[in-house]
């Protein structure tokens, strides 16, 4: 596995009205919603991992932490950075950061486990039928 500490990736996303807290049920808050930052954090970490995994392997999130430090209005761009902090067998730990056009808006960590997709899906299928 070519996953190495220090690898990083960057995503850029635009804040649209669809991903505001208002749209997720927090009326009146037309700013980037926290769960969307969580989703971008996971997306960045997962994409970084996926680029270095063998076919048939994937990752699942086991722990996500996020501090949301500042509000971002609709129309701004956000840059999300994931850096692979630790590789410990199948366990991966990523450092995460998000910045809008003005300031740092969030930081966090995501722990993910490398799984054999077929085995993972079999396990889920068993849970479904039990």
């Amino acid at each position, binding site marked *: 596995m070519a996953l190495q500490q220090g690898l990083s990736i960057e995503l850029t996303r635009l804040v649209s009205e669809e991903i505001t807290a208002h749209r997720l049920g927090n009326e009146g*808050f037309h700013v980037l919603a926290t769960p969307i930052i969580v989703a971008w954090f996971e997306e960045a970490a997962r994409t970084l991992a996926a680029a270095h995994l063998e076919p048939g392997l994937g990752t699942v999130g086991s722990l996500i932490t996020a501090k949301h430090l500042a509000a971002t209005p609709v*129309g701004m761009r956000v840059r999300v950075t994931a850096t692979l902090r630790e590789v410990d067998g199948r366990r991966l730990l990523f450092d995460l950061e998000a910045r809008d*056009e003005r300031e740092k808006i969030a930081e966090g960590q995501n722990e993910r486990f490398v799984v054999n997709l077929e085995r993972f899906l079999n396990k889920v299928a068993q849970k479904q039928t039990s």
Partner: protein
Amino acid sequence: MSLTEGLTFELERTVTEADLSDRHGNPWVHVFTTPKVVEWMEELATTGVQPHLQEGQGTVGTVVNMKHVAATPAGFKVKVVANLKQIDGRRLVFWLEAFDDAEKIAECHHERFIVDLTRFHDKVAKKRAGRS
């Protein structure tokens, strides 16, 4: 403000295909996606405290620390339980847990801040106007 420590809130919802990881960019992983668990938890905390706030107030999320401990297939019901553990001025601390039909699937420390909507909007408008 009628907010008191120990308030609990609950929501129950069925996991649909649209809530699965493979719909959110993680191919083949047909299980309830972590950001959706976070979304439901935040929604519950937000809507739970809202009726207890004064007119013109709302809350914004500041901290999410969530362990996702088990995978949930589509079709399962998920129950989310929120407990308002601590009130520290404008800071609200929640402990949330989620259970599917078979087991506990997630637990989360979540913090929110009570804000004055008008003041919050002014601040956001200023930030937008001043952007480079």
